[in-house]
């Protein structure tokens, strides 16, 4: 018997290949962008964008097809889309998933559950929250030669090279499932016919509870991670100064000595000055030292503001809880939430300006 098994395995392998229908990539309807809006009576309205690649002479011209369906569950959105499309729907190339703000404020838990379980989906996918209908963003953002997913991924990716903290589905899920850490997502809105990414949507577990505006974004990012890009415009005396970050370092420290632990966030910011406008004073070492101390107080107040907002809302996008747990023996998970709101968190900022250009 065992002698025949050696022949059975390859035989079965060859026979079983008939069980899978195969389609060439051009025969599929490839969903690249999906958006979810609240529908009527607890239903979900799903909108997908499917690019149509045109062969022959005009190769660069890409048309896009938009399908909007109402469904009672997330999975049945895909099913309903299939009812309206002649080709087999393929969801493996999904790049961006958008959620309407209303859904996000209610609860995204179910969506995250379905998305995180689907093995066809990429973890590099971007998730984002939109102000207003996702349908209008998906249908309104298309430009010639660029699909909506190209546009949205480009927008988010390039902002991650600037002042937006790094985000994708992997990051989102990791902070969503972690203890003592809350997630955030890009917050998109449509201004006339342009999609704008200027805010951050902050989540308490699966519920969106707050947003951070453009001028808090940079502070949030330097509090969260080390990076070496991004510019920021700051007020100084009667004019403005454009500061470019060339490498920051953030360190969390925890002091266990008291009953209530206290946190210290040490922020070192190395920067160069790009532009000075409206300041009637020769730029020299003295002015720079003045600037440094001025900006230090600015960042200190700004950071404290942001952190007190987090504490007030009971969210922890910086992951202080996770940090504290990793450094505390006999850590009690159920006491942390109550503790977090009252913990003193102090921020120490040191700004050093390395370059300010040649001035006479």
């Amino acid at each position, binding site marked *: 018997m065992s002698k025949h098994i050696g022949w059975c395995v390859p035989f079965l392998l060859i026979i079983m290949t008939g069980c899978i229908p*195969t*389609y*060439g990539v051009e025969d599929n309807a490839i969903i690249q962008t999906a958006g979810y809006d609240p529908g009527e009576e607890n239903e979900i309205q799903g909108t997908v964008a499917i690019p149509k690649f045109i*062969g022959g002479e005009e190769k660069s011209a890409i048309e896009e097809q938009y399908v909007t369906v109402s469904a009672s569950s997330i999975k049945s959105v895909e099913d309903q889309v299939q009812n309206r499309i002649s080709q087999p729907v393929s969801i493996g190339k999904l790049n961006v998933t958008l959620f309407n703000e209303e859904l996000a404020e209610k609860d995204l838990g179910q969506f995250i559950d379905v998305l995180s379980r689907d093995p066809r989906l*990429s973890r590099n996918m971007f998730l984002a929250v939109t102000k207003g209908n996702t349908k209008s963003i998906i249908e309104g953002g298309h430009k010639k030669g660029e699909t909506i997913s190209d546009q949205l991924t480009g927008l988010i990716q390039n902002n991650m090279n600037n002042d937006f903290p790094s985000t994708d589905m992997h990051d989102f899920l990791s902070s969503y499932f972690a203890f003592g850490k809350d997630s955030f997502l890009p917050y998109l809105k449509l201004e006339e016919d342009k999609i704008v990414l200027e805010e951050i949507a902050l989540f308490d577990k699966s519920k969106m509870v707050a947003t951070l505006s453009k001028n808090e974004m940079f502070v949030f990012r330097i509090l969260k991670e080390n990076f070496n890009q991004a510019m920021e415009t700051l007020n100084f005396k009667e004019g403005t100064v454009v500061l470019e970050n060339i490498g920051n370092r953030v360190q969390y420290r925890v002091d266990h000595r008291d009953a209530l632990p206290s946190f210290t966030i040490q922020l070192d910011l190395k920067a160069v000055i790009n532009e000075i406008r409206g300041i009637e004073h020769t730029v020299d070492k003295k002015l720079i030292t003045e600037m440094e101390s001025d900006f230090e107080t600015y960042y200190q107040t700004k950071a404290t503001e942001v952190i007190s907002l987090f504490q007030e809302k009971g969210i922890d996008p910086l992951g202080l809880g996770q940090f504290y747990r990793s450094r505390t023996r006999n850590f009690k998970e159920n006491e942390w939430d109550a503790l977090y709101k009252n913990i003193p968190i102090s921020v120490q900022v040191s700004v050093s300006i390395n370059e300010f250009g040649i001035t006479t």
Partner: protein
Amino acid sequence: MTKWLDKLKRKEPLNESEETLEDLLKTLKKSGDFITYSLGGHPPCTISYIKTLSKSDYINDFVIKPLKNAKLHSLKEMENAITVENIEMTDELSIIKEKIMIGYALIQSDADNKQVLLIPATSFESRQVGTAEVEFSVVGPKEAFVESLHLNINLVRKRLPLPQLRIEEQKIGKVTNTRVATIFIDGIANPDNVQTVKQRLQDIEYDQIIDSSFITQMLADNSSSPFPQLLDTERPDRAVSTLVEGKIVIIVDGSPQALICPTTVVEFFSASDDYFLPWHLATVFRLIRLFAVLFSVLSTPLYVAILTFHHEMIPRELMATIVSSRSDIPFPPILEVIILELAIELLREAGARLPTKIGQTIGIVGGIVIGTAAVDAGLTSNVLLIIVALSALASFTTPVYQIGNTIRLIRFPFIIGAQLWGLVGIAMVMIFFMGHLIKLKSIGSPFFEPLYPLRIQDLKDAFIRLPFNIQFKRPMLTRSPDQSRVNTKRVKEKRDIDE
């Protein structure tokens, strides 16, 4: 019934019917180029030789003239009178037959019935030594082996003025009686390997050995493998450098290709150029060549697998290019690939049959023309055309022709695997070939050597080539009794003086 069986069991392909010298001469006389005539004298003697094998002028000047002038009575006197070296006097029929068939002249005397004189008068007609065409290199020696064993051994000998260089000849092939020389350096080559080669050569039972490739197939440890297990080269310099490493070279009379054994799979991808260029350049070029082989084997199977099963692997930016080039094609990717691969194979076969090397170039250009027409007609996509053309180009980078053919062939199982099971199929076929390579041996030595078994020391000249001043030792593969190439102590002393 028994008669029929006896016929099948017959051992020798030709019946040895000649039992006496007269019989032999009678058989030979049936051919037009066999010359025999009487020289007169007392007692009268006869000279016979094969005109097309011997030098007639030479026989006239150095054999017939001295015999005519002097009055000679016995064969012994004749032997002294003829001013040719290596004259043999014998009465043994087998020796007479062997020598006459390679161009010796035979002298019989009526006075001495049994004994005959055998005078060497073989003419070594051969093509001039030309330049290497298959393994061409821009720098380095240009000489290549020719069809004459005599000349080929000369090419090796003059590069190795060494008394320890041993050349052992065997005759193989019951009908062709081809001379096969086993060359090695005594004291550097492993005697076990030499013994194995000689034994296997002796055990060959076949009627004809036309070319050294016959020996490659007959000596192989696994004759069903698509991989050649003996390295063939037309460059004497390459043969010599492997001899010095402790390998064994087999040269077959009538074949311009010498065989090198034992060898490893990476040696098939190393060119002589690698040793003529500075080591870092050589390393990069060798790595490019190895990458080209992988690309050539795997690119079209990956195309089939990704386009049929794994759309997610296509980058977003490439999606539009691939999909729009595929959208008008009526075939699935597998058919498209098979059509184009077959077209390339047809062109290659046609190119190989064309008279000159230019034929091959024309074939490739023709391929591109046909390919472009196929794209315009909407039969294949232009992305695939580029992939197939590049993979064909990549398979030409192999310095050894034999392994190039193997690479040509093993692409097809990969394509079939890719169509049946996608990337898993490619992995399965890869595992199959890797298992085969790991198991394979060349004259008893592991074929996949520096990688399996892992011999760190031999990696110095496998995927990379380190500078000569690091390569102190001969490859472990040959298990040479004399391991070190240089006297390391003396090297160290010389360095100290320099500094």
